[in-house]
């Protein structure tokens, strides 16, 4: 049984599943990376995802347009981000806790809207798979990497893009400075509030897209609380990736693949209690971090509201 784990079917299955499952994590975690890099901890990701999830689904369901659906998720995410930015930047509220507040708001609101506007679980036709000619025909991996829907491709393109923005642009420089030493950035005329508004709203948008990737690309349904803690895992993955987009990618893939592995462990009938199998991705994520000693520290100003102390 154990040896079956190493068959090509299983390995390809794990890889493919990992690639897919990682998609929502990537969007949300990259968004969170931006806000954390600028010194803002957003624990409301899950709520933003749920609202994005619903908005995308509902608009797609009613208009039949996937792109309008995606746009709706973006708009809703941006709005949530705007609110979060106002509360944490202007009102200087505790970030962690206001994030929990926004999480609860999103959790409840998405459900409430779902009940009022939809009433019951429905399905939509999600983003179709895009076969990349040539590449998708490569045996084995072609199917995995080059036969996905557009939001999956988008998630992976986001990784180098995020790296580029953070490390090669003036905006990225400002973001990093604001997250490490907002006083210094401020003293050079960098508008700390504006930078944080930008990253928080961007985080909201990407969380919204993460939600959309579930409801109109990967699962094509909406159900209350369907993210089921995914947003919190996404936040954790930012720490796993040590605020580096590629690290976040690694974490998302690791977590998703181990999750897929545990499904296979159960399917192959390997005699491990199902609950113990379900623990695997969580345990392994921690163990990997223990094994790879990293000295990277969080952005110094993370969770600290900025204020000129007069």
């Amino acid at each position, binding site marked *: 049984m154990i040896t079956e784990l190493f068959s090509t079917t*299983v390995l390809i299955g794990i890889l493919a599943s990992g690639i897919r499952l990682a998609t929502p994590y990537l969007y949300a975690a990259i968004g969170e990376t931006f806000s954390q890099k600028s010194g803002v901890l957003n624990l409301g990701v899950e709520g933003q995802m749920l609202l994005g999830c619903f908005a995308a689904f509902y608009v797609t369901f009613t208009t039949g347009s996937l792109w309008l659906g995606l746009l709706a998720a973006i708009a809703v995410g941006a709005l949530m981000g705007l609110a979060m930015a106002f509360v944490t930047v202007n009102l200087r509220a505790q970030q962690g806790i206001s994030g929990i507040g926004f999480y609860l708001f999103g959790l409840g609101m998405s*459900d409430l809207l779902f009940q009022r506007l939809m009433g019951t679980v429905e*399905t939509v036709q999600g983003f179709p798979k895009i076969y990349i000619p040539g590449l998708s025909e490569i045996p084995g991996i072609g199917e995995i990497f080059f036969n996905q829907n557009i939001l999956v491709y988008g998630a992976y393109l986001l990784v180098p893009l995020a790296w580029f923005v953070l490390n090669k642009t003036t905006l990225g420089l400002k973001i990093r400075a604001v997250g490490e030493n907002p006083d210094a950035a401020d003293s050079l005329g960098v508008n700390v509030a504006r930078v944080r508004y930008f990253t928080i709203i961007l985080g909201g948008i990407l969380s919204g897209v993460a939600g959309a990737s*579930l409801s109109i690309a990967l*699962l094509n349904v909406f159900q209350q609380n369907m993210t*089921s803690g995914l947003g919190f895992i996404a936040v954790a993955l930012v720490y796993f990736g040590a605020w580096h987009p590629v690290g976040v990618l690694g974490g998302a893939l690791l977590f998703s693949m181990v999750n897929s592995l545990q499904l296979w462990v159960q*399917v192959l009938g390997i005699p491990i209690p*199902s*609950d113990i199998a379900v623990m695997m991705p969580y345990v392994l994520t921690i163990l990997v971090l223990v094994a790879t000693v990293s000295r990277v520290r969080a952005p110094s100003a993370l969770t600290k509201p900025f204020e000129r102390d007069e």
Partner: protein
Amino acid sequence: GGSTAAPEEAAAMEPFRVAVVMPSAINDLAFSQSMYDALLLIQEEMGGPEMFEIVYSENMFVVDDAAAAIRDYASQGYDLVIGHGSQYGSSLQEIAPDFPETSFAWGTTSETFGQPNIFAYSASSQQGGYVNGVLAATLSQSATIGVVGPIEVGDAKLYVDGFKAGVAATNPAVTVNVNYIGSFSDVALASEAATTHISAGADVLTGTAQMVVGAIGKAEEANALWFGTQSNQTSLAPSIVVANQVYHWEVALREMISMIQAGELGGKAFDATLANGGEVMEFNPDYALSDDAKALADSTIQGIIDGSITITLP
């Protein structure tokens, strides 16, 4: 105008009042909805909200909150307070003695704690599971079937065990792979579990609890067949859903209500079965089930009803 009427008349005029506490949302297309739909049906039968009042608390997954709700409903004089979730048992056991005039019901279980005002209800979900299993084994070409479950307990476990028994009885060569994903709400993981089953060769899938909506979509994508339970899930994927085991709690509820109206407040356990109509197999009219298969399903149902088929659970 009830105040001026004679007492008997007033009693007849008074609506029957039911309160129900449910662990998930009333529209979950699964366990909670099955109860809510049944109550609505009875309401219609009894003449609308004036005659049959329903109040509910949904998403009461916190046992402690549910207990508070149950106590509150009881103190407000509802005729029947239903704790629709086996986790509410201990709360009911504690509360019921304080409200001897109120009738309580809880499910799914057969335990009434020997209390005169507690009804218990359960579903022999292994029965519908068995029927689904028999059909699944017949329809599977790849001889591999996948099951997606939440956690390995209660109603879910019962259904899955029944399903496996049905498959084994029909074709022992068919493999049933089971995945418990450890959650009632993780739609994404449920769908991934379905994909895993499909990769492992399954061409027929089933699953239980509210998160399986994700799995149904994956089955549809892969053109694998789906068997539903708890509610009728046909609408989610009309092309691939073959049959659903649907709970009709109204069967038990009707009996409870008439007992209560007759002054008997509890002490009885109801079991929803294929025989008593508490469970019904609903087939998807749009799915072209071969006559042979349909006949096999019907004979299996009949066999379970008349007792010629016994389901042995592990």
